[in-house]
């Protein structure tokens, strides 16, 4: 089954966190099995921004952030970018009563592409479950 990775899942692989080992094990499986990976453009913006936050906090260096971006672009992820993605994201956010449409972009990709959403975010996982979208919580 195709997988939509969210930014938390990517970041946990790239930077050391308590969930890194779990994320790493799953990334290895996905990549070695050549599982199709699909994500919204938001993934790249969020990963970049959070890497910058890590660097600004002194946890990692600027060189680490650049290396992580190079790694990100070597992961064979198909970017889903269409009007229907954003329309679906708005619809999902509205149904969930969310005032923002960040999480819903990942959910929209998973929903429209028929893939499973992989995340470390319990809130996003719960929302996906409520919308009947296949999701996996990595902990």
């Amino acid at each position: 089954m195709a997988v939509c990775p969210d930014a938390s899942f990517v970041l946990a692989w790239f930077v050391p966190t308590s969930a890194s080992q779990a994320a790493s094990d799953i990334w290895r499986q996905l990549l070695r099995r050549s599982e199709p990976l699909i994500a919204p453009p938001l993934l790249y913006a969020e990963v970049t921004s959070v890497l910058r936050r890590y660097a600004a906090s002194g946890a990692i260096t600027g060189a680490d952030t650049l290396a992580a971006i190079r790694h990100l672009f070597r992961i064979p992820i198909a970017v889903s970018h269409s009007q229907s993605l954003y329309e679906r994201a708005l619809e999902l956010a509205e149904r969930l009563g969310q005032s923002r449409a960040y999480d819903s972009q990942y959910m929209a990709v998973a929903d429209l592409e028929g893939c499973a959403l992989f995340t470390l975010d319990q809130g996003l996982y719960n929302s996906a479950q409520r919308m009947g979208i296949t999701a996996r919580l990595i902990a």
Partner: protein
Amino acid sequence: MSETAGPEGAISVAEAARRMRRSIEQVRRYLREGKLKGERIGQQWFVDEASLGEPVFRYKRSPARSTGQVREVAAIMDSEAIAKSRIETLIREVEASREEMGRRLGGNVDISVVEMLQADRDER
């Protein structure tokens, strides 16, 4: 057809074709055109093995130009092997990079990416 023993450092056209993933006819054409170095002994061409390493043949191989099924399968296997090798390299590099960051942090890896993402979104 039996193969005549070739000169030293030379290989048969069939062997050159296999290594280059080109047809035998294409290799013969390269020989006639002088793109490949070789020697004709009687009715049989031999290819100078060293000339296979020349850039034009090392880098211009195009699986899409292959015509035979065997060559196509070989090309697919080749590209799959390359893709797998790239993935293994990526995995190694990502994990080495993360471990290095972890060492610099002195094992303090208690940073929640979910909280970082949330804070990032809140500040937008």
